[in-house]
């Protein structure tokens, strides 16, 4: 449960900012949309996936979603599109496509 309410942060004047730039809460990275930084986006083919979970192990941002020991997809809110997962997959189950074409609804 988040203690620090910064929903109106864009309206804060200098007196309202926490002293010394301290962030008085934990896990705030969860709300930071680092996924917006992507220029390449990972897409995976479940047919080729063997659930070895190499992608999960190597992802630097914990952006591989796993349920019941099975690879189910990507956390696109946080995935920065580094491509390590695609690089590490031994079964060509992941490929990187341009984020722009994904934005247009292609390569879903």
């Amino acid at each position: 449960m988040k203690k620090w309410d910064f929903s109106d942060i864009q309206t804060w004047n200098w007196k309202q900012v926490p002293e010394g730039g301290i962030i008085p809460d934990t896990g705030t990275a969860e709300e930071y949309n680092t996924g917006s930084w992507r220029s390449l986006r990972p897409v995976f083919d479940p047919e080729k996936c063997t659930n070895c979970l190499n992608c999960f192990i190597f992802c630097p941002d914990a952006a591989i979603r796993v349920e019941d020991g099975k690879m189910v997809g990507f956390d696109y809110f946080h995935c920065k599109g580094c491509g390590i997962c695609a690089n590490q997959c031994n079964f060509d189950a992941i490929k990187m496509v341009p984020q722009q074409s994904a934005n247009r609804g292609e390569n879903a």
Partner: protein
Amino acid sequence: MTRTVAVVGTDAAAEAMRQINPDVVPVYPITPQTAIVEKFADFVADGDVHTHMINVESEHSAMSAAIGASAAGARVMTCTASQGLALMFEELYVASGLRLPIVMTNVNRSLSAPINIHCDHGDSMGARDSGWIQIFSENAQEVYDNILQSIKIAEHADVHLPAMVMMDGFIISHAIDRVEYLDDSLTQKFIGEYTPQYSLLNAENPVSMGNFDGLGGFFFELKRQQEAAMVNAKRVIRQIGAEYKDISGRSYDFFSVYKTEDADAVILSAGSSCGTVREVVDVMRAEGKKIGAIKLRSFRPFPAEELAQELSRFKALAILDRSAAFAGDLGGPIFIETRSAFYERENHPLMSNYVYGLGGRDLDPSMIRKAGEEMLQAITNGKVPQIVNYLGLRD
């Protein structure tokens, strides 16, 4: 119980540290401060304090470790001088930006080049924009008193800024003087416990410090907060000064005056030179000359309003600086800032800067006398002979 001793300035600083009993002291030696931490190391070895003392590999590391320890909730102190202060330059800004109440003794020593280990205010003046509180001490007693007060000033809820206490290198640090030490339990009661609102080791209230604050962020706002804290520090310095007077009998404020009530000309200075200035004032007063002295204690925050209020009634003011600002023969920092303090006022004294003592060059009473006489003469002439003068320079 109170003890009166004959000790060198570094001993007085070490004793204040012993009574404060800080949690962490990361330190690197440099002349002329080393004797402080050597003495303190004895206290640590003897178990007189519970301090975790860390011998680091450089002053940059000393301040880095101080920041880490302070962020973790420890009461932290260290000491340095000259090149050491310069080496920790980037970390000074980190300490003040993170609003950590680290207290450091800086023994004023010249900055190379050329290499010179003697008294000069250039080191601490170089850090005047770093956001640290800067308090000058005239003698060993003031060193002891200022260090104790600085803990409370720095840790005050309305301040939360690091503070450095200055003493003149060799002149005060290495000379024996009479000092009155307060009782241990009295000082401990005065200092109190350090209870930071946030700390990195507080698992119940976990926080993140030192985060990146980018283009859409709040860097500007956080700096504005630091300015506000410095303004608050003025009030707190006075408040702590009054509290300290209650336990010690000694008064402390932004500055103190000597024989200024009916003075026409006044000499303003900071550090050990203030004692010599008072001697000269006494000699000149005995000759019927209306001269007085002002000792500046708080340089950061700079008491512009209070100084201008106090000084505007005098006809001439000689300002002594023990450092050069290299603005192009325009005077030293105390002169530049004091002069600026008068800008809005209709009345201000004739002012002249007397730069002295660089690299430990001795300040002779006759030099101070020359400054005093020139200011008295300037009143008659209606102007000063020179805006910037150099006392003791081979010219």
